[in-house]
């Protein structure tokens, strides 16, 4: 079965339907599937539930899908950088479920690993724990959180091969590996598709079994907070 597709549009062909759940990798704008997000917008699919740590910014990343009102619900840990998100949320047009960041990461990992629920002490005694099962282990209280799976996961990696093996670069890894495992279908976009055998098999971050389709694409890689230091003058 051929996993390599010519472009983002082709890679989503036949995979989308209204009301579906999509996991979108990335932290802030770092390591997001820029091209697949745009292709998803262009399919016109609506009523999406999107699982993503953040919601992009107004004019980049998941902000594109917010502009066109294709998202019904977001499951995220932090959404502070997006004015359109705020407007839609305050107007009651967008549902929002906050998860602590580590709980969100673990829910994706668990979902992909066939684990329907797990206990964590994160959020005990806060609004996050309300309505959730509590259980004590060795004198400490934990709450039950559930695993998450998606109809489609879109992830971004640095390099990949025709088998769908992926490696990520630096902190652009973030949520991508877990989301790749938790998709009924996972589509990856990479900066470079390399010949089979050229990735070190011992250093593959996401084995190809988790990736059904892969494309090579250009990435703008927009920076949210460019912070630099001055060179001391000679």
């Amino acid at each position, binding site marked *: 079965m051929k996993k390599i597709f010519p472009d983002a549009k082709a890679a989503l062909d036949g995979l989308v339907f209204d009301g579906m759940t999509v996991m979108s990798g990335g*932290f*802030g*704008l*770092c*390591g997001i599937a820029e091209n697949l997000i745009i292709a998803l917008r262009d399919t016109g699919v609506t009523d999406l539930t999107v699982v993503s*740590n953040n919601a992009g910014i107004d004019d980049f990343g998941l902000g594109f899908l917010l502009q066109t009102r294709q998202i019904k619900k977001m499951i*995220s*840990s*932090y*959404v*502070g*950088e997006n004015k359109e998100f*705020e407007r839609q*949320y*305050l107007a009651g047009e967008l549902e929002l479920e*906050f998860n*602590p*960041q*580590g*709980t969100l*990461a*673990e829910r*994706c*990992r668990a979902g992909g690993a066939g684990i329907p629920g797990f206990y*964590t*002490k*994160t*959020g*005990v*005694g*806060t*609004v*996050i724990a309300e309505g959730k099962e509590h259980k004590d282990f060795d004198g400490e209280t934990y709450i039950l959180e559930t695993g998450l799976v998606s109809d489609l996961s879109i992830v971004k990696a*640095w390099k990949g091969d025709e088998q769908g093996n992926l490696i*990520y*670069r*630096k*902190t*652009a*890894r*973030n*949520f*991508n*590996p*877990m989301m790749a495992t938790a998709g009924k279908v996972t589509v990856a976009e990479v900066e470079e598709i390399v010949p089979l055998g050229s990735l070190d098999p011992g250093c593959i*971050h996401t084995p190809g079994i988790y990736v059904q389709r892969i494309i090579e694409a250009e990435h703008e*890689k*927009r*920076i*949210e*907070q*460019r*912070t*630099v*230091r001055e*060179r001391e003058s000679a």
Partner: protein
Amino acid sequence: MAWDRNQMAERAARELKDGFYVNLGIGIPTLVANHIDEGIDVTLQSENGMLGMGPFPYDDEVDADLINAGKQTITELRRTSYFSSADSFAMIRGGHIDLSVLGAMEVSEKGDLANWMIPGKMVKGMGGAMDLVAGVKRVVVVMDHASKSGAPKLLHECSLPLTGREVVDMVITNLGVFEIETGKGMKLIELASGVCVDDVKTLTQADFEVAV
């Protein structure tokens, strides 16, 4: 007289010990990195997925794939490792991180922390704060002692939604340093330069023992 932001960060930096793995929050906690004693070896964790965080890059070193949890561009060190966010929070939740320095809106005398949400205002989300306070071995809060209008932030009970219950071990404010021991309450252990106990009492609602 009281401590400014940098002096508070400098005081917080004295809580870092040789060999510690440390997570620094956004705001004043970030400044702690500038005051780490050169004689000790400390590794900074960034919860998006990095151990061994280096300083901000020079202009020609900026790399979009290399950011910290505040989404700022940073650099790597020779000791650096990268990993997924699930692995990162396994470190945090699993108790492998020695110390976290965080900002706060309110802290109670029992060590409850509120720092993520003001009802009625736009909620941005808790990010990794709930995981950090639940899992990191020692939690140090750095914050202004009172609000700009003079309202106490060290309270009997937090009025804002909590980030965690009985999680704060130390509070460093512009007026001094408090220790909180679970079940024993709050203790003032240090005063900022030029500050007396009565100054602190005036701006504090929480009960605290004086041990300066």
